């Protein structure tokens, strides 16, 4: 594991609301190796976005707080770094793109202003060099008319183009890790294909490791090598993408895969997981998936299983002895 560039261990992040502490991320551990693409899958409220914001130090202040665990970047714990130190990493070593390309760019500044700002922040360059770099980046992400684009405002661009600009901003300082939080969810299928294609290309060309957060199992299957499945703030399954799709261990993963309609063959009836995603903090005891699980046993309601296994790990009593 020495080649892992980012290592999250036992991370716990909570939100402090009027109703008290709500755990959003509850003791997760995973690592990202240099140049790999790690998929983080889960449905709304599973804590996948909070994980990414915790890594970036962008949790909403003051409600969100890291209450435990470590985030090791290049061997150094960054989970409680001072803001000034964290700023040096952000955008430089760790970059992030978001779900909504429509609102993630500032509407009253030009593309050029927003792109050169990112370059200027972490590099000493002349105005001309900044401009050249900006044009180069726009070409890198496959945007035509790069020079003119610099003078345009975000509202003049389509959603797909804006997401490319966001990627250009993220890539501006050659980050070691790129966190992409649902980067294609707001886009149409054909545009999604373009963006995923671009991200794969960038990963191969620049060796930037990518942490791809998504709810779409299709996207994961096509892009990622390794996958982490989250449910209720915990990792329930982790492993190689092929293992997970071909032999899912956790009933939740299995249910998710089975409940997607197939594009190539028609099933009579879809499998469906009963009930709905629990609110964070609403289940206090036992496995969080127990109320929805088809294989639920008595002890599932009492105890929380560990994430066990070598290589292909799962957090389920059905597979505890395999470790």
């Amino acid at each position: 594991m020495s080649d892992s560039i980012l290592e999250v261990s036992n991370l716990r992040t909570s939100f402090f609301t009027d109703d008290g502490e709500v755990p959003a991320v509850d003791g997760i551990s995973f690592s990202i190796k240099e140049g790999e693409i790690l998929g983080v899958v889960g449905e709304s409220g599973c804590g996948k976005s909070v994980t990414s914001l915790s890594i970036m130090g962008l949790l909403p202040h003051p409600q969100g707080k890291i209450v435990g665990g470590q985030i090791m970047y290049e061997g150094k714990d960054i989970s409680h770094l001072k803001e000034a130190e964290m700023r040096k990493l952000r955008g430089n070593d760790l970059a992030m793109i978001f779900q909504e390309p429509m609102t993630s760019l500032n509407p009253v500044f030009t593309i050029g202003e927003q792109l050169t700002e990112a370059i200027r922040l972490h590099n000493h360059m002349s105005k001309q060099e900044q401009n050249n770099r900006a044009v180069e980046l726009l070409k890198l992400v496959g945007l035509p008319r790069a020079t003119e684009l610099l003078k345009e405002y975000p509202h003049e661009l389509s959603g797909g183009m804006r997401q490319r600009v966001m990627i250009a901003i993220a890539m501006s300082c050659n980050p070691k890790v790129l966190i992409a939080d649902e980067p294609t969810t707001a886009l149409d299928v054909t545009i999604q294909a373009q963006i995923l294609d671009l991200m794969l290309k960038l990963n191969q060309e620049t060796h930037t490791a990518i942490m791809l957060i998504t709810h779409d199992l299709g996207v994961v299957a096509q892009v990622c090598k390794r996958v982490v499945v989250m449910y209720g703030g915990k990792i329930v399954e982790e492993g190689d993408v092929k293992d997970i799709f071909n032999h899912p261990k956790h009933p939740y993963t299995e249910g998710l895969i089975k409940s997607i309609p197939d594009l190539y063959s028609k099933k009579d009836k879809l499998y469906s997981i009963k009930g709905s995603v629990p609110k964070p903090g609403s289940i206090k005891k036992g496995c969080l998936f127990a109320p929805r699980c088809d294989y639920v046993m008595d002890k599932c309601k009492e105890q929380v299983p560990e994430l066990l296994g070598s290589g292909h790990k799962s957090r389920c009593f059905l597979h505890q002895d395999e470790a």
Partner: protein
Amino acid sequence: MSESLQDSAKLSPEKERSLFVQGLIDFWKQFRKNKPAIVGFLIVLFFILIAIFAKQIAPQGINDQNIAIRLQPPSAKHLLGTDDFGRDILSRIVFGAQLSLRVGFFAVIGSIIVGTFFGVIAGYFGKLIDTVISRFFDILLAFPSILLSIAIVTILGPSLNNALVAIAIVNVPVFGRLVRSRVLTVKEEEYIMAARSIGMGNTRIIMKHILPNSFAPIIVQGTLNIATAILDAAGLGFLGMGAQPPQPEWGTMLSESRQYITNAPWTVIFPGLAIILVVIGFNLMGDGLRDALDPRMKN
């Protein structure tokens, strides 16, 4: 989620009404968390009680004059001192609460009724009728509000009731625009689309769906506007265009006693404090209501 629903949802039909009560309780829980709002609510309540029980509270009558004790500083007998006619300032402020609250409430209720009517029509039916109404609002809003009130009072003649009418008219476009924009937003909501797809008529859509969902901002704005209405009424009173002496309206009291500020500052300080306090009360309460009723805060 579904489990908690089942636990608490075994309701008998008689308890149906209690769900509305539950809504009120939920609102109160939200509102209660907001301490400034509670302070505002208490201030407002305080003045309302004073106004209702003015006769019982006031140590003296509104116009009990006694030149012998004119311009006396606050003392045990006259807690807030006396004015140039020897009238007890505390008593006049207590009775003044009736006037100020009356102007505030009725002016705002008047503007809400008229403004809502035009706002709904403009927002829901759009097109020409919207253009006409909106332009009319624009014209009214082109006048600084106190100036328009002055103009109206100039026409109607100076009196507290005319000031009330003037303030109400001036505030009509405020609510008209608010309701119109609210209707425009609500109109685009999917549940209105759903209502239309069911085959529902316009009147039912407006009454059952649009108005109830426009209510919260009206109440918030209404509360805040009571504050400005009280201020404007006092301002008109001060200019001699509102309540007329010897009515104990606070602005009028200020205008009567401003010449004595050097030797009897209490005659000016206390009526002003009364105004500022009640206005702070309504402002705090309005802010609190906004926080509690803001749909964005829900869920």
